[in-house]
């Protein structure tokens, strides 16, 4: 079979599986987050009540947006402090069989912010830095809680549309507890065990010493990997237990584990569009968001596959066989694993950057120029196709607000969306939201390339080195966490600068989203008239995609031209 046809079939099968999951999972999330009685809520009620009683939470309290936002940021900052402390105190903590010492202050800061913000940018190498307790009680806990935080913001934003004349947008503690207990924890537990069946390790043993067939010594790392791997994908976190992340055979050993990990990455973000449609009482409103996400996603996956499968002309020029066939994947295999080849690596690279995941099963730094352009561009679009857990939905809703505003300007009517007037305050907040990350990315990259400390990090010469730096700030500010990993990022400069980018890139947009939610919830519903622009059809989908591309392309084309585009032409000319 032609490799392109095989890829098309694989991609269709993958998307088919995703679409099968969207409605049941989206319905389930809506039900538990709205507290609509079902089997799970009844079973969990005693645990929930106990949690609230021990924490002094009044589950009936409704929070105005500002209190919701303060509770959220406070909870996240406290979480980061705990992760920082665990790393600094590691030498004195149990469950550290390799006796790793305390992590440096700047690296601990970077990692703490990284995991609390759902970024999971990793300047450290897991198997030689983090003991099991830090991985479990520090990093994996934040994998759950940062993803739950994203769901909270998305649900609060939906309430902005569903409530009328309301002063409050929900209770952060209740939303957090429910999304963790009923959504993330059960899914992670099931996925973890399936991953173990495939070979992902799960133990507390010390590392093993093997004497290889050719009588060399090899150390085999151990640890509670599967329990962390599952939430790493489901929560679109992406922080690997090991340095090689999901390319490591102990994290992702088979084509089946890889398929399940890719599905886990995109499942909740896509399902939340259905949750949205269901909660606003018109599921078509959710399907159009999903359609816009897929229309952005699919061509970029195909682009990545195409350029990776074409391979590296400089390697072909040495007589190396890069042709795809029944006996090999062919193509650009530098930085890729045999079991994944080109197709499963390209799809994973796109899935992990179209969400805020950032797990990798191949090394993006070694992709071809335009193959590597795809993950970089998907991140820079703002991770909304389908985006991270929760973040994808609220980012898309911000672009929907921008879209109806642009449409309103064109036809000279006050813009409205789902029965809510979009006015100056919402537009200001949407602008803050949309401009925050481009500012952080471009300013951060500019500072890095203008200073010796920044330039010192680049591992590859020329345009590719620039791409490494641009990718680092794109990834940090958009809370992705993947990297062109040749960049020597474990320096004070990068630990501090990307740490700040991650923090501001996470919480500015969250606060803006919650403020929009609060403002919308307070408004009255305006009736649908003949003059109302429908937001459930093809016209709205194109408007949405147009807004996303307009902002993304206009903002990043100059920087992208200096990186992957220049490199592409250099590669073409280098033969």
């Amino acid at each position, binding site marked *: 079979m032609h490799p392109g046809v095989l890829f098309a079939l694989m991609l269709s099968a993958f998307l088919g599986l995703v679409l099968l999951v969207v409605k049941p999972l989206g319905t389930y999330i809506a039900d538990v987050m709205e507290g609509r009685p079902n089997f799970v809520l009844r079973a969990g009620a005693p645990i929930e009540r106990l949690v609230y009683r021990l924490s002094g939470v009044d589950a009936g309290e409704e929070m105005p947006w500002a209190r919701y936002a303060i509770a959220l940021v406070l909870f996240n900052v406290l979480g980061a402090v705990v992760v920082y402390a665990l790393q600094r105190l590691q030498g004195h903590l149990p469950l550290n069989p390799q006796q790793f010492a305390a992590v440096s202050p700047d690296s601990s800061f970077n990692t703490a912010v990284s995991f609390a913000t759902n970024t999971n940018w990793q300047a450290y190498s897991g198997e030689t830095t983090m003991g099991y307790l830090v991985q479990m009680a520090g990093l994996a806990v934040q994998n759950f809680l940062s993803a739950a935080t994203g769901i909270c913001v998305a649900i609060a934003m939906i309430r902005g549309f569903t409530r009328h004349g309301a002063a409050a947008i929900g209770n952060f503690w209740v939303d957090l507890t429910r999304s963790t207990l009923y959504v993330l924890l059960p899914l992670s537990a099931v996925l973890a*065990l399936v991953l173990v*069946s495939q070979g992902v390790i799960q133990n*507390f043993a010390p590392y093993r010493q093997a004497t290889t067939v050719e009588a060399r010594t090899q150390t085999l790392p151990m640890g509670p990997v599967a329990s962390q791997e599952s939430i790493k994908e489901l929560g679109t976190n992406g922080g690997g237990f090991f340095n090689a992340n999901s390319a490591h*055979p102990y994290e992702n050993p088979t084509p089946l584990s890889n398929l399940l990990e890719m599905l886990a990455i995109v499942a909740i973000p896509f399902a939340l569009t259905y949750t949205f449609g269901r909660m606003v009482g018109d599921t078509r409103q959710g399907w159009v968001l999903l359609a816009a996400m897929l229309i952005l996603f699919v061509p970029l996956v195909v682009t990545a596959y195409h350029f990776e499968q074409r391979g590296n002309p400089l390697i072909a020029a*040495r007589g190396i066989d890069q042709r795809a066939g029944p006996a090999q*994947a062919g193509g*650009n295999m530098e930085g890729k694993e045999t079991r994944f080849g080109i197709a499963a690596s390209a799809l994973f690279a796109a899935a992990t950057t179209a969400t805020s995941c950032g797990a990798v099963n191949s090394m993006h730094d070694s992709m071809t120029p335009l193959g590597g352009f795809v993950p970089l561009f998907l991140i820079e679009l703002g991770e909304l196709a389908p985006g991270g857990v929760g973040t994808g939905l609220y980012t898309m809703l911000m672009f929907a607000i921008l879209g109806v505003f642009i449409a309103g300007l064109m036809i000279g009517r006050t813009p409205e969306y789902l029965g809510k007037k979009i006015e100056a305050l919402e537009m200001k907040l949407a602008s803050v939201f949309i401009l925050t990350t481009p500012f952080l990315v471009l300013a951060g990259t500019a500072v890095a390339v203008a200073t010796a400390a920044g330039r010192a990090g680049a591992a*590859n010469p020329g345009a590719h080195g620039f791409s490494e730096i641009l990718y680092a700030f794109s990834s940090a500010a958009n809370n992705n966490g993947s990297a062109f990993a040749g960049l020597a990022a474990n320096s004070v400069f990068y630990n501090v600068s990307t740490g700040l980018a991650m923090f501001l890139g996470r919480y500015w947009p969250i606060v803006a989203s919650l403020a929009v939610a609060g403002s919308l919830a307070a408004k009255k519903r305006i009736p649908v008239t003949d003059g109302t622009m429908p937001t459930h059809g093809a016209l709205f989908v194109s408007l949405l995609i147009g807004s996303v591309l307009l902002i993304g392309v206009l903002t990043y084309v100059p920087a992208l031209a200096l990186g992957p585009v220049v490199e592409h032409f250099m590669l073409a000319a280098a033969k």
Partner: protein
Amino acid sequence: MFLRLIRPAASLLVLMTALLGIAYPVVITGAAAALFPRAAGGSLIYGRTGTLVGSALIGQRFSEPKYFWGRPSATTPQPYNGLGSTGSNLGPLNPALLAEVGANVSALRDADPGNRMPIPVGLVTSSASGLDPEISPADARFQAERVARARKLRLSTVEALIAAHRRGRLLGLFGEPRINVLELNLALDRLH
């Protein structure tokens, strides 16, 4: 307002850490040990004398002509360092990448000067993890004559062993055909 939020924030964090950071991984570890003990422990392979030879999932370095070699590994300080999983992270235009490919080509050609087949890309490019346990069927076929000669085996015997170790795609769609290098080499050793 801030002080009223501190208590729920701190207590929820403690409770969630106990649940998600301790109870959850401990329960999963117990269930994994009961259901899939070999996989949970690292798919370890022991020799006849009970010594640990390695893991079926973690590639190891082979350099003797009588063994199939795995993918080039970019780990440091030595290839297939289990403590340092990494790819090369070399960009496609980087002269260092082409130097590496050139060195890998020379090593393969020197070990098998009569082999006129084009070298498959998997044998000259570094894997993502540096620990790739597998090679493609083309990578194996390229080395079959060298291994057969070094072991004084018939080529057809070696090729049959390769075929027996070949794993296909999941449902014909997902992943790539591949052969586990350590398992293939251990099977070769067992032939004698």
